[in-house]
């Protein structure tokens, strides 16, 4: 399931994402972030990159994962739409991500995301589902 829902936050933009495993939770969170930035239907898969993030606790790993991806857009103009977590452990994660370079003539940008905040950042396991709440500064 690729959905995410908005949570009510006055100043910024909060979302709740879920996934049947921690891996998929991380993948879905990344997808949601790029879905907030751009109309993903306009993005094609042309390039691929491998990402390694060194771990801390789960919430911090999620923040670092999203911060890394956000900088790939904000700093290097890469729009990403496919995410595969290959490995996730207390020591960190390894992932492959795919997308393409920003092209203003084809890509329909929706909004600027300034940052991934740590405020109310939370990962929980409910029954058999993993859930996370993330607030972006926009």
């Amino acid at each position: 399931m690729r959905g995410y829902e908005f949570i009510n936050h006055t100043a910024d933009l909060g979302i709740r994402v879920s996934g049947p495993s921690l891996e998929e939770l991380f993948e879905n969170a990344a997808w949601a972030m790029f879905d907030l930035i751009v109309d993903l239907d306009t993005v094609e898969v042309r390039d691929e990159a491998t990402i390694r993030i060194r771990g801390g606790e789960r919430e911090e790993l999620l923040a670092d994962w999203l911060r890394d991806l956000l900088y790939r857009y904000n700093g290097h103009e890469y729009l990403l739409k496919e995410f595969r977590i290959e490995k996730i452990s207390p020591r960190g994660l390894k992932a492959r991500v795919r997308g393409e370079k920003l092209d203003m003539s084809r890509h329909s940008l929706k909004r600027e995301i300034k940052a991934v905040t740590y405020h109310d950042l939370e990962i929980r396991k409910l029954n058999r589902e993993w859930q996370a709440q993330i607030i972006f500064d926009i």
Partner: protein
Amino acid sequence: MPEEYRLKKIDDYRWEIPKSEGMRVPGLLYTDEKMLKVLETDRTPLQVKNVAYLPGIVNYSLAMPDMHWGYGFPIGGVAATDPEEGGVISPGGIGYDINCGVRLLRTNLTLPDIKDRLHNLLAGLFSNIPCGVGSTSSLRLSSRELKTVLRDGAKWAVKRSYGQEDDLERTEDYGAMPGADPEKVSQKALKRGTNQLGTLGSGNHFLEIDLVEKIYLPEIAEVFGLEEGQIAVAIHSGSRGLGYQVCDDYLAVMRQAIEKYKISLPDRQLSCAPLSSPEGQDYFAAMASAANFAWTNRQVMTHWTREVIQRVLGISPKALGMRLVYDVCHNIGKFELHSWDGKKKRLLVHRKGATRAFPAHHPQVPGVYREVGQPVLVPGDMGTNSYVMVGTKLAMEQTWGSTCHGAGRVMSRSKAKKAARGRALEKELEERGILVMAKGWATVAEEMPEAYKDVNEVVRIVEKAGLSRKVAKLRPLGVIKG
């Protein structure tokens, strides 16, 4: 993690959150009965309480009348820390958009001079000032030049003919904050700065053509260069991607620092380091650099605005008389001298969505305004008014010379979007006499008037509480947004 707080009414415009376990000082909210009801439905008061946990915080964790729910600090939060008492600096208490701020320019024009040309003026500004998501500047800076901007701030712009000498005198800190060190800014942040100098951005940022609708304090308005019926221009923007990256980089540093210095906090977003630590000092130097970038950014856009208006109306700079009234920052941390504990003390004042409001005779108020006090610029939403206010002695005594920074949101962005669905906001605003040009209409929906508190109410509370006085009321005629 304690979730509760108590509120104790002090007078009609102040509520205290008494000190409880973990808090180093009490909280103090400047609001009224009606607005407090709204605040109690979200978590703003809890955030005021959380800020009171910061090591070295003195007197109160304060919240200005436009306060609303943020992350870490509330928006509208003010906190001073004492470096001699283990005081900390918290990037979350300054915000991602370091030195997000507003400047107001007065002109010699009146409504009849531009009435028939408003569309052309706005179109000219819209095409000459890059705005919207993904927009970049026509200015490209080498890494050496960018570092000069970070060190010298708006002075760099004036030296490069993007402005006039007296612009600097009318900019907070003369457009260059002391203590900036570009070497403390990461390569990532520098990279984001190379093509964004002179860009408005998106979200709540705007460039606005205003009409001075009403003057409340004529003697002070005259010193500010404002009169009824006059046309003015307001620019609201910040340090763009460079500033966001500085905050993001140092929040990660602070995450480690709180463990190193054994600081216990109720919210990770409040992560901080002692002002005396290398982490704290590096962040301050990087933050000041980003602040200088923001002042230069607004200065460059000021120059382009002057050029466009002169060209569209075919008038000389002298006939236009577009002089800066003032430029204030409202996301910043500054070392300032304040009376505390019977002495003059150097404190670090965090202002997160709050404006400095120094009174008459304060040595940091520029000479031209020394006799009347510092101009305070309070933008409203795009459908209502903006205000020019002036700093007071009482604010100096109670809030470290701070006041509100705008209207403050009441509606989440997703809610605003829903409320705007099926409505022609552009038309609605036009019917109210406000022309809007925007790159993204989704932004306009998120920023629509109902999403904000009524600025008139906020300003009324500010004045009743004595934090600043109304000098002039402005009404938007034309707005460009990202």
